[in-house]
């Protein structure tokens, strides 16, 4: 195990850039869901939400600069949640 590697400092500029992207994506979701997309609406909205979440995690939460360990663990937590929901749907969908 390596010792405390010093932390990456993220410039104000890239943080602000991220924020602009996030706000733009928010506007995009709102606009998209005002349209009549039928069943794709949910999909669109959630996809955009996932992209936004990814941005927040990667930049604001510094995950982009973390080591492998934390990334794997984050992945593990998300997969666990997905499995909990997924397996429940074996009941909900086929009842």
């Amino acid at each position: 195990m390596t010792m405390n590697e010093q932390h990456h400092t993220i410039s104000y500029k890239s943080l602000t850039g991220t924020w602009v992207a996030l706000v733009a994506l928010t506007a995009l979701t709102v606009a998209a869901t005002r349209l009549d997309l039928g069943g794709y609406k949910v999909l669109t909205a959630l996809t955009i939400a996932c992209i936004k979440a990814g941005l927040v995690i990667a930049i604001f939460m510094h995950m982009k600069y973390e080591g492998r360990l934390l990334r794997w663990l984050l992945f593990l937590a998300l997969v666990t949640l997905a499995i909990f929901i997924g397996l429940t749907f074996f009941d909900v969908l086929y009842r």
Partner: protein
Amino acid sequence: MTHQPHTDNLGARLGMWLFLFTELLLFGGLFLLYAVYFKRYPHEFAVAGTQLNWVMGTANTVILLTSSLCAAMAVTAVQRGESRRAVGLIGGTILCAAGFMTIKYFEWSEKIGHGIYPGSAHLRGGVPGESVFFSLYFMTTGIHGLHVLIGCVLLAVIGFKITSGAVTAENYNLLENGALYWHLVDLIWIFIFPLYYLIL
């Protein structure tokens, strides 16, 4: 390795992230219920969802995103040793949070004024899916709001620690973890917003 737990930043962050996972799963339970009931009552959910004010929701989303930006910049500021600026940014975060809670307050009181709250006569008498939607809405945003409040207190304490010199460019773990917590609150909202306000 030798024992230097006080400067083991990675360890401290690991602990914080683990805690964030538990928060994620806590809300995950609510999202699970949302998914299940949305599947069962798509129409009722859509109708009920139109009763929420998407303008307010959007405003709150932007406010929270901004607060997150402030929190992230505060970390950068402390890393660069600009502690005055960091305190200011934390103040900005808390201000945004206050704005968020104010809007939330208006939204909730409007709904409650219309007789829509968990267990209200209106919901008991209405279609089943509507009651489920609003119960979930109040539970989710309620617990989320509670997290906003906790985050505010946490950040305020950290702000004072920066002024008192306990959090510095060499030792900013606390701030970093506080900011992580705040981003999580934002993260949850990023999903609450489309699910409740937009999918109609």
